[in-house]
């Protein structure tokens, strides 16, 4: 039972500093423009939440360890060392006040990918034991129980039988050779059971084979949120082993944000080799079905609708047009938010903020940005999104601000209008 120490933290930071980061730290001119792109700053006006400030200890470490002048200054005792106290203070800036949403990265005039650096900063925070209580708990549960919210397989199996009863469609567990491996996020299993029903009906209608692995049904990855690649590797390896054992062609990341980033973008780099299978977000797959004519819908929603772009899916994931294509199949009055698409604002709960009790109040304050966005749209009745975490956050936010607006998952919405040939009753 080794323990977290400052040494291990600094060592972790030394491991992750690379050429892009050296370029970024050499380019920052303290112009402050990343602050106004970050909802944690705009809604609190706390200058400490300025994104580039969140990596100040990392910057000093780079300067002291990886530049000639920095090393000389350190040798002459002219440099300020990184201490536990400082990292403890930075826990609030790098975790509570950051959802890794990536907006600062899109705005920085000298092109610094600040999100990339905060994610790396968290590696050092995790190794040196300066991570929020909530995330430690979530990671422990994810590793030991299999899901950050403690969801076990029987709960999923119960939900599956429930869906089978309702739709008559068989939920395939551990089917070798299926084309798709379906992953679920605990949030969906616990809060949004309609998701499983929706995907099973859609896939059934599309005639596509899919399965759920009983060994690795959990999509979320607390390791990514807490910022420890080691823990993230442990979690993502389960998915990879299951997918390889079942010989699937594509792993589907469900309506969740960071899960997609964890599996598709960080997964291969965590385990050190390219995946023998594709990784796609559920919306990507549905859009393919749409294109191939396998997803037919009927009827339209008459309510005025808008779409909240989950950061990890759209800005950090590149799934930009698909949600629009799908939503336009069922919506006649679809209105885009002012800053939509890759520049949309975060809901305030991503990147581990929702699992972090210390950040509760801050999370709600950050939600005001999304509230202002909605207020700017006149007469919107329904908000559609594609991430369970965003959904809960927005529902809580709207409730707290007494705004009566239903929040709907896009996959569910499509299922409601699904055309099924041999619809069995019951």
């Amino acid at each position: 039972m080794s323990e977290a120490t400052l040494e291990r933290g600094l060592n972790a930071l030394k491991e992750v500093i690379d050429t892009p980061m050296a370029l970024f730290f050499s380019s920052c001119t303290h112009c402050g423009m990343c602050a106004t792109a970050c909802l944690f700053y705009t809604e609190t006006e706390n200058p400490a939440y300025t994104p580039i400030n969140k990596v100040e200890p990392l910057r000093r470490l780079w300067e002291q360890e990886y530049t000639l002048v920095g090393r000389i200054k350190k040798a002459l005792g002219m440099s300020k060392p990184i201490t536990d106290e400082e990292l403890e203070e930075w826990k609030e800036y790098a975790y509570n006040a950051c959802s890794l949403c990536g907006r600062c990265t899109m705005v920085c005039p000298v092109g610094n990918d600040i999100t990339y650096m905060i994610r790396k900063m968290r590696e050092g925070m995790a190794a040196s034991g300066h991570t929020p209580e909530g995330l430690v708990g979530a990671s422990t549960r994810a590793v030991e129980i299999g899901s950050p919210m403690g969801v076990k397989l029987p709960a999923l199996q119960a939900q599956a039988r429930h869906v089978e009863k309702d739709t008559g469609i068989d939920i395939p567990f551990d089917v070798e050779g299926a084309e798709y491996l379906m992953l679920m996020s605990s949030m969906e299993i616990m809060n949004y059971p309609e998701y499983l029903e929706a995907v099973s009906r859609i896939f059934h209608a599309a005639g596509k084979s899919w399965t759920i692995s009983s060994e690795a049904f959990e999509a979320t990855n607390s390791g990514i949120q807490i910022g420890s690649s080691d823990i993230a590797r442990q979690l993502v390896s389960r998915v990879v082993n299951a997918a390889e054992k079942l010989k699937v062609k594509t792993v589907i990341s469900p309506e969740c944000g960071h899960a997609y980033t964890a599996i598709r973008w960080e997964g291969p780099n965590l385990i050190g080799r390219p995946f023998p299978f594709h990784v796609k977000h559920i919306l990507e797959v549905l859009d393919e079905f749409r294109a191939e004519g396998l997803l037919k819908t009927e009827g339209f929603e008459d309510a005025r609708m808008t779409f909240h772009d989950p950061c990890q899916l759209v800005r950090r994931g590149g799934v930009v047009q698909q949600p629009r294509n799908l939503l336009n199949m069922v919506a006649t009055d679809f209105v885009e938010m002012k800053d939509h698409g890759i520049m949309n604002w975060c809901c305030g709960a991503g990147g581990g903020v929702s699992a972090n009790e210390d950040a509760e109040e801050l999370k709600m304050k950050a939600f005001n940005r999304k509230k202002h966005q909605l207020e700017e749209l006149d007469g919107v009745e329904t908000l559609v999104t594609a991430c369970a975490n965003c959904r809960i956050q927005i529902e809580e936010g709207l409730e707290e601000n007494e705004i009566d607006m239903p929040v709907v998952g896009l996959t569910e919405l499509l299922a409601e209008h699904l055309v099924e040939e041999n619809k069995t009753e019951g």
Partner: protein
Amino acid sequence: MADDRTLAEMLRAQGITRRGFLKFCATTASMMALSPAMVPKIAAALESARRPSVIWLSFQECTGCTESLTRSHSPSIEKLIFDVISLDHHHTLMAASGHAVDEALNEAMEENFGKYILIVDGSIPVGNPAYSTVSGISNLDMLEHAAKGAAAIVSVGTCAAYGGLPYAKPNPTGAVAVSDIIKDKPIINVPGCPPIPVVITGVLAQFLTFGKIPELDSLGRPKAFYGQNIHDRCYRRPFYERGQFAETFDDEGAKKGWCLFKLGCKGPVTYNACATTKWNEGTSWPVEAGHGCLGCSQPDFWDMGGFYNALSVPTVDLAKKAAVGIAAGAAIGVAAGALNRRKKAKAVSEHQTVTVDDLEKGA
């Protein structure tokens, strides 16, 4: 030798009418770059001026200044000035020679001790005094000896004022300026290589009329002649502003009389009266003749980075220096980079896998 008659009496003795004297004052005022309104004042001052005795010593020089001053090719107003001042000693101009010259010099010094003006042209070799001697006496000793009784010293020419050509790198003779040796006497520097004749006589006339040292700038030069920056008074300045430059001495721009900045003109850093007073009675001056100003009235004008390099061009080959920088930088850079990589590799090797159990301090 000294004549105690006033200047006015002398002129009248030569049959020059008052109107002639007024003309003399007008042209002298113009020479001294004073405003015409000053003529009555100058007339009054000139009238009562005493004829100062002048001793001219030539040291390490090319006689260019003397020729420029005396304008041996066509004497004019300066000749008149010469009639006015009693030039008691000048190696080149004196008819006498040999010991007679030395006696004349000592005699002139004793007689007007403390009153005569000492004019020096040429620099003084202190590296090895033997480089330049006059009848066996080194320039250094002669200067120190002559300076004792001088009321004021006028260093004529950049050599006397700042060391000039002999002083230019590598300065084999260890040449120095007058002001480097004589510290206790008022010194008026009249630099130029050579100085404009009118400027030399102008300074003398000014000293003669007002009897005191004219106002000097930081380099000891009379502001009347050296207060103006050539660049500011140059008639080609409008071309500089419009960015119209001659690129070579015979291109379209040169023919049209455009600015010669790119051909090395040192006008912007040079203070002299060439642009207005011009040379050869206002005929022309270097820039008007199509050649950039050399900055000859400035110290070290020989080492200003080449007569034909633009003023802004550095006097060292920066490309070569940059190459040195890159080479050294690359060497140090590769070493520093390697150090970084080793440090990073060491960190990676010492990586202790983080598990959920050791996420807390002292868990």
